[in-house]
């Protein structure tokens, strides 16, 4: 584990110092999970729909290069300029070059986790370009100088009083006003001025259709549209895995996306962009940034099916009780833990271990990614690649030796039971983290093995 940053366990430990706040965060996200359940119950054959979505994505990954070329051909024919970025740096450079070409140094941006992954805002700001994030949650964390903690609910970790304070400082709203209605109205006025004056808008992409070259952007606020339809240049940024084969497949994905994410039947706006507006330039940047590598990992390629709904985060008890920032990466939670090690195995070696492998995530995933199986498999890869802590490796080897030699295991004796000295949660030592907040049962007079020998071992003759 790198010494340069705190790992999930340390960050989660920090987060848990304020138990009331953890309860608030946990209950809020559990409520979102419950809304998802309610919405899913209302769709006949929800499970079949998940299976269909999963199968469409399986087909997509198996023909990804062909679909990408088809998409490029169709989109280009429609008047959209397609750019290809091998990594985050190139993506940022392409976007910057477009802004420079148009001599623009103030832009609006709607939600795009891809741009978050590429740290686009930081890059643009270093070039002297002002970026205003227009999604309310994103704008809030932008004003706070923080990254979003959840891919769909960016400031779920912030209380309304804190948001009120931010708005008072940056927008001039009255001190102490924490009314969501009032604050949202203030944000509307503040951002409307940006929409009306910015000439370039950046959006994300939820789905890109190979068949027609169109792409779909889903929002509740209407901010992607307010940006794009008023700007002279619309730049859409997407990961290459966001392709789906045919327009009619949107029927499947748009039925699943919002229900899985927030429990709504659909987002307020599902905007299908196909051609630029008359006189407008439309650009789309296709980004690899490690995706083609992940595609080659047989055990982990299914993580590329992700449609970024966030359902796995809402259901994950570890995410709910540790917060998105504990994952120290753009995309947190269960899906983040199987995507990030591909980008930097050393830096994110801790993430697949930030889980009890309960399996809830895999079963809310609308495209049936086997998340919890992949978490287990990443653990094996991480250890094999030498990223496990030395102490752990030594104790595991010792454990393996003893457990392979029953005579040693069984002759540990009552007094100094080998078990109690070596199995992590049983180590009989007040320094063992187990004992911080839990007791351990006193060892009984005799083990089951000993009882059995005394009472039943005629069976073993």
């Amino acid at each position, binding site marked *: 584990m790198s010494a340069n940053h705190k790992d999930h*366990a340390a960050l*989660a430990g920090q987060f*848990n110092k304020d*138990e009331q706040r*953890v309860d608030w965060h*946990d209950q809020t996200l559990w409520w979102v999970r419950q809304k998802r*359940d309610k919405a899913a119950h209302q769709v006949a054959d*929800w*499970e079949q729909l998940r299976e269909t979505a999963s199968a469409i994505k399986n087909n997509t990954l198996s023909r990804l290069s062909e679909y990408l070329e088809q998409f490029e051909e169709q989109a280009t024919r429609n008047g959209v300029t397609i750019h290809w970025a091998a990594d985050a740096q190139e993506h940022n450079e392409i976007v910057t070059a477009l802004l420079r070409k148009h001599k623009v140094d103030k832009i609006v941006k709607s939600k795009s986790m891809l741009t978050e992954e590429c740290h686009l805002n930081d890059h643009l700001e270093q070039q002297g370009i002002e970026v205003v994030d227009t999604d309310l949650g994103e704008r809030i964390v932008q004003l706070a100088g923080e990254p979003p903690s959840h891919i769909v609910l960016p400031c779920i970790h912030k209380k309304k009083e804190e948001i009120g304070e931010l708005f008072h400082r940056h927008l001039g709203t009255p001190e102490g006003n924490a009314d969501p209605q009032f604050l949202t109205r203030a944000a509307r006025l503040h951002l409307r001025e940006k929409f009306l004056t910015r000439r370039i808008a950046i959006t994300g992409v939820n789905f890109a259709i190979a068949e027609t070259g169109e792409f779909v952007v889903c929002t509740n606020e209407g901010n992607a549209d307010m940006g794009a339809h008023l700007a002279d240049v619309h730049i859409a940024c997407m990961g290459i895995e966001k392709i789906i084969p045919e327009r009619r497949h949107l029927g499947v994905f748009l039925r699943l996306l919002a229900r899985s994410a927030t429990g709504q039947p659909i987002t307020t706006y599902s905007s299908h962009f196909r051609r630029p507006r008359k006189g407008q330039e439309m650009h789309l940047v296709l980004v690899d940034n490690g995706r083609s590598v992940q595609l080659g990992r047989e055990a982990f390629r299914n993580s590329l099916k992700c449609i970024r709904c966030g359902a796995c985060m809402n259901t994950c*008890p*570890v995410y709910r*009780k*540790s917060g998105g920032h504990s994952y120290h990466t753009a995309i947190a939670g269960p899906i983040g833990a199987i995507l990030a090690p591909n980008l930097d195995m050393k830096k994110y070696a801790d993430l697949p*271990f*930030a*889980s*009890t*492998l*309960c*399996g*809830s995530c895999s*079963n*809310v995933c609308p495209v049936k990614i086997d998340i919890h199986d992949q978490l287990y498999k990443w*653990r*094996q890869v*991480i*250890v*094999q690649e030498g990223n496990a802590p030395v102490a752990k*490796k030594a104790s*595991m*080897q010792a*454990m*393996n*030796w003893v*457990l392979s*030699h*029953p005579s040693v295991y*069984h002759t540990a004796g009552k007094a100094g039971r080998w*078990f*109690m000295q070596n199995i*992590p*949660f*049983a180590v009989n030592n007040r320094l063992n*983290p*187990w004992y911080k*907040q*839990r*007791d*351990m*049962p*006193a*060892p*009984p*007079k005799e*083990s*089951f*093995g000993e*009882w*059995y020998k005394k009472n039943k071992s005629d*069976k073993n003759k």
Partner: protein
Amino acid sequence: MFMRVGLFIPCYIDQFYPQVAVATLQILERSGCEVVYPLKQTCCGQPMANSGFEHLTGGCNELFIKNFAEFDYIVSPSGSCVLHIKDHLHSDQAAAPALAIRSKIYELVEFLTDILRIEKIEARFPHKVGVHQSCHGQRGLKLSQMTELMAPAFSKPERLLKLVEGIELIELDRKDECCGFGGTFCVAEEAVSVKMGKDRVTDHTLHGAEYITAADMSCLMHLEGILERQQSPLKVIHIAEILNAGRQESPSPDKFSNA
């Protein structure tokens, strides 16, 4: 129906909760099985595999196969251990026996329900009981329906428990949220692990449980650790002990205690 059953007892039950193993043995014998506990068994290898050291579990695998290949069935009062064997047991030298074991190993509740097809239980446990749905048993072995799926509800543990005289099962706010044990997670991510356990305990407490039961002693050990530290009157008890309760020969924890 004569069955020769190999009893597989996880290390922490062997060492800390022997009464659970005794109850399991008694239930199986009473149901007409011949039960044998291979004395040379140690561990299924799960703690190592889940920590990323699956490549070190070869010794455990070979030992497991050696100990258990001969039986008609292998039964264990532990959902997570059984799931691990079902999913991961393999051997280059003994490939066929390994495969065979994976299809004849059962957790106790599923063995009683699906193989022995128990319809009656002569046990008495007149208490309010909260059922903790251990994750590996539930989502892995399908012991009960998970709330994530839009599918008909069912619960093998609850069905068996309802056959016990005097028992009252309580409702919960979150029927199948993880307790936070998770193997080495319980010490590597101590803060979150304990928080998860405390939240489960609160759910049961608020709904008036006198006992929390489960098919996995690891979950219960973790919850018990929290309950004891809180000096709570709530107790944990493995489902095998409830299904064997109120009988003269049933072992109580006190029989084994050093006190």
